[in-house]
């Protein structure tokens, strides 16, 4: 009987100690994960800033003119075309929806 009581008490003590040790271990693990999360968030923010700065209209316009020798369309070169609402057409594979932009003196191509 004494042996059983001793075993139960010892088991409970060990369980308690194991639980405390595990809590501390998990605490360290959580800390490590939190640090990792912070680092990843920092990296994400850095990338967002970089993306935002790289997609700035000023930079894109500069790159277009300096690197790709692109120019702004001349006055009146862009004609926006009214699209009359039609009954829903049967869509063909190459049909185009939405607004159509036509540049004067330029070959007109259809795109999806």
């Amino acid at each position, binding site marked *: 009987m004494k042996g059983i009581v001793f075993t139960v008490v010892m088991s409970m003590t060990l369980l308690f100690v194991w639980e405390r040790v595990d809590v501390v271990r998990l*605490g360290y693990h959580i*800390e490590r994960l939190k640090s990792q999360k912070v680092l990843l968030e920092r990296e994400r923010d850095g990338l967002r*800033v970089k993306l935002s700065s790289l997609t700035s209209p000023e930079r894109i316009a500069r790159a277009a003119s300096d690197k790709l020798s692109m120019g702004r369309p001349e006055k009146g070169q862009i*004609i926006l075309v009214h699209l009359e609402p039609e009954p829903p057409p049967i869509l063909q594979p190459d049909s185009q929806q939405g607004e159509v*932009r036509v540049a004067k003196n330029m070959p007109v191509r259809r795109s999806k």
Partner: protein
Amino acid sequence: MAGVPSRGRWMVVTTGMMFAFVFVLIRLVNLQVLQAAELTIKADRQHQKSVAFEGARGTIYDRHGKVLAMNMDVPSVFGVPSSLANPGQTAKHLSPILHIRTGELEKKLRQEKHFVWLARKLEPEQGRRLERLALDGVGVVMEGRRFYPKGPLLSHVLGFAGMDDRGLEGIELKYETFLRGEKRVVILQRDALGRAVFPKGLNEKGVAAGHSLVLTIDEVIQYIAEKELDEAVNRTGAKSGTIIVTNPKTGAILAMAVSPRFDPNTVGALSPDRWRNRALTDSYEPGSTMKVVLAAAALEEKVMSPGSMIFGEHGQMAVANTIIHDHEKSGWMTFAQMIQRSSNIGAAKVGMTLGDWRFYDYLKEFGFGDKSDIDLPGEVTGLLRSPREWGRRSVASISMGQEIGVTPVQMIAAIGAIANGGLLMKPHVMSEIRNTKNLPIAQTKPQVRRRVISTETARTLTHIMEGVVTNGTGSKAVIPGYRVAGKTGTAQKIDPRTGAYSSALLVGSFVGFVPAEDPQLAMIVVIDEPRGESWGGVVAAPVFGKVGEQVLNYLGIPAEESVKIALADSTL
């Protein structure tokens, strides 16, 4: 009884143990009861660490979700002078990384303090180099720094946040309470090595970041406006320039720019003069653009109709012992022609016919002399005196845009009212406030302040203003294929040296909207002190035309005379 301790030895051991227990008991009472409070604090200080956390400042987006301002953690470096053996040597190591002179750093490190900032909010690479250096008595912590990834774009509207992450100007200041992150002190348990073991507040909610703002500003329209304004200011050698583009139906500001611009990432020692948002902090005499408001009042009161005849006095008329001149001599002209030619004499006559109080009432109705309540800080009311304080010439002067001070924001709100059929809208730049879960918690709905003129008057005036562009002084504002309504203005400025109107210091401006039949854009362009030819029709109207054309293309607003095709029949 050998081996059995004598009674005397028992007594000695028992007494000794009793004394030992009593000593332990006294010590326990001393530690646990008498010094309990003091020792608890001491122990907590050793194994607990309180850290103040502040949530990141909210992000600011344009209306399409493009980031305009956001926070990022960057390294700051501090020194612990009390633990430094050789401050001079430490300063030498730090100097090339921090780009601060050795002497300056050494001075900081020799202070009799336990903590001193050496440099804050550095570039991430500098932080990495410092960590690799691992100097004793020098530490690196991460702090939130405000970034404006688009550089000078929208700088005067965004404003900027200071070193402590508090908004100091512009949107950053106006919406400080929403943008600022939550601040909370969290207690962490430390082990023998000083590492955080198990934060007490682990189960508590994390520190919340600030709310995000979505503006009505469109990044692309803003870029177009800034580019063309900068180009005009440089070309004309002007002191500064202002442009505002709005949706006249809602009062939403699509673009607002002041030239010269500044980069909010490096505000540094710039004077307030550089970052002041002149679109609402500076008033100017509007000159002939004010004739639009005069015309609105005259038409609404049925004092005039487009065909009413006015005699132009052949370019010269005396009013209250002063002479009013016209730049173009006219005889008889219609009311519409008077606006198109921008006749000062005609305007003075219309103003005098309206009368002081009636004209004043309309000026107030259109919002002059009062703040527009735009959600940006620093707005001024401009200058509109009561008719009780007017002189004999005042009604004539105000009719042609003198003796009155307006801000570009007031003027564009008034023009917007004509464009949208007579409703004065409240201008605004904030569209939506979103919480950290990206859910909207507040939205700005278009707000009508009041009706200022009837729809019919607005329509009539729009036709007259179209004539200004097709046949009058605003011909350079033409946008091929679109009907543009507008008005030019050229105002003399007071010369601070003489106190009189200067013939050299002028403000050229243009206000208008497009397409006239269904206005989608209203715009004001103000060029301050251009050199050379300074007429509003020459310096400001072309900016309207260039910006208008690009923005209409960008928004996909087709021209009235554009080709109409049925998609189904399209052979494109």
